[in-house]
């Protein structure tokens, strides 16, 4: 590499003797420099970008909070399903020994916490006591009630496995029918799925809003630096070089907006979790509102950065090539 000062060296010949390695490391350093410079520029003039940060933060907090709520609700609903016990109605006239054998079989199955047998006679006695129809029941020629095995599934067993258990039992020759008290749970899950879909749609719309807001901010920033862009293009800047500071600015907008949104979500959680626990305690539940997990927070930040980057790309793509020296 030519290292003599300009005054004495042959100026024409030494202009392009930069090694590939130097170029690469220069390129890396350039990225670092631009990254730090653009961040400093944003941080030293926080008022100018504060509106953009806030818009991004709010746009992220809204779907973020809804997602957090749904996440908590679906965890809660997972606990509910364990309370759905299963009634296995036996074939009428099944003898006592067969019923006891089936009971033992059921107890050895997966996901079964407990199972108890109520014989047809017991059932009739219970019914007689609770209904007050004693005399009328005596008129019946035979006991109309079947024997029942009441199955309590494991706490926290997945709903599909519990349903699977019910289906297998239904095919057993000794079983007449299986009743799973899960219709309300199905409805709850359907409702949660619908809400999740709504959160996605809302999230997509707000993501678009973030892209547009960042794009517009970058557009203004490009407009205010037209002269500078002309000059650096004149001294040989490639389009990538011109784009770089704007793309980093978009990335930082996303990051700061994402961080703000995370703070808002944590504050929201702090405000709400106390009352929610009080409410849960009134219902005799130990339920605690879970905060945003580390993974979800990371997704939030990376997503915000990606959106900021897309927004600036979109703006840079539309406006930068119009500026030629």
């Amino acid at each position, binding site marked *: 590499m030519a290292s003599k000062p*300009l*005054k004495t060296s*042959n*100026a*024409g010949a030494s*202009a392009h003797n930069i090694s590939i390695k*130097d170029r690469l490391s220069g390129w890396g350093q350039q990225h670092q420099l631009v990254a730090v410079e653009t961040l400093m520029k944003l941080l030293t003039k926080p008022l100018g970008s504060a509106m953009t940060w806030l818009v991004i933060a709010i746009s992220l907090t809204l779907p973020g909070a809804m997602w957090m709520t749904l996440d908590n609700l679906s965890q809660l609903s997972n606990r509910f399903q364990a309370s759905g016990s299963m009634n296995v109605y036996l074939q009428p006239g099944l003898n006592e020994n067969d019923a006891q054998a089936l009971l033992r079989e059921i107890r050895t199955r997966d996901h079964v916490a407990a199972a108890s047998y109520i014989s047809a006679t017991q059932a009739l006695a219970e019914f007689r006591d609770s209904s007050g129809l004693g005399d009328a029941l005596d008129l019946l020629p035979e006991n109309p009630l079947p024997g029942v095995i009441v199955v309590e599934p494991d706490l926290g067993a997945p709903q599909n496995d519990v349903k699977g258990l019910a289906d297998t039992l239904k095919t057993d020759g000794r079983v007449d029918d299986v009743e799973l008290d899960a219709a309300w749970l199905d409805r709850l899950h359907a409702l949660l799925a619908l809400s999740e879909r709504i959160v996605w749609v809302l999230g997509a719309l707000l993501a678009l809003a973030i892209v547009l807001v960042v794009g517009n901010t970058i557009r203004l920033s490009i407009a205010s630096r037209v002269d500078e862009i002309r000059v650096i293009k*004149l001294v*040989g800047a*490639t389009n990538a070089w011109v784009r770089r500071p704007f793309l980093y600015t978009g990335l930082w907008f996303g990051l700061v907006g994402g961080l703000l949104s995370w703070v808002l979500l944590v504050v929201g959680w702090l405000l709400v979790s106390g009352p929610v626990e009080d409410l849960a305690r009134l219902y005799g539940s130990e339920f605690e509102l879970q905060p945003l997990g580390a993974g979800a927070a990371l997704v939030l930040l990376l997503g915000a950065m990606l959106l900021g980057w897309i927004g600036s790309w979109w703006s840079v793509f539309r406006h930068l090539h119009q500026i030629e020296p």
Partner: protein
Amino acid sequence: MSMVRFEGVTKRYSDGRSGSKEALSQVDFELAKGEFAFLTGHSGAGKSTLLKLMMQMERPSKGQVYVDGVSLNTMKASQVPYLRRKIGVVFQNHQLLFDRTVFDNVALPLLIAGYQPAEAARRVRAALDSVGLLGFEHRNPIELSGGEQQRVGIARAVVNKPKLLLADEPTGNLDPELSEEIMNLFLRFQQVGVTVLIATHDIALIERMGHRRLVLDHGRLYEHSTQHASSAGDDHGL
């Protein structure tokens, strides 16, 4: 081998009502490597257009432009930045950026070309030294006089050791004494092998300095006949 060659170059600008206006008509000329030449002509004669064609800031309507043996007509847009790195330009209004120091202004072409900061800093100081502004690194160009700003512009144009140095009215705003100083600076770059083309209408200065003169008149280019013998080539190259 020529540094710049124009072959039948015509440049028309479309003009709202009457179709188009011809800024350059059938221009043919060559600049040999290491040559020093002036480009003169009345304002609006097409001087700036001619310089812009070499920088790929404009494309010819007709004809061919070659810089350093490369045809610009077939050059891809992605290659234009690399062409511009071979060319240093000095403007009348110097085009400095006032949001950064003299050092950062001059270092710009080096950063763009991917120089290491240490090497870039060394070259920036060498370039500032060559224009007599060593010690001005940390000043903002807005604090400097017109002549000093112009010299910062020259330092930026030569810091990347270009093969070709173009100047568009570099002494337009300066008094005669400063103008001569700036011209002598350009001569020094020519002495180390840079091809220099200076567009100016400062006829008195050109007469004093000699060297080849290209004259533009309403878009047509003529060689000025009464030129002195110059050290670096004559009208038609070597």
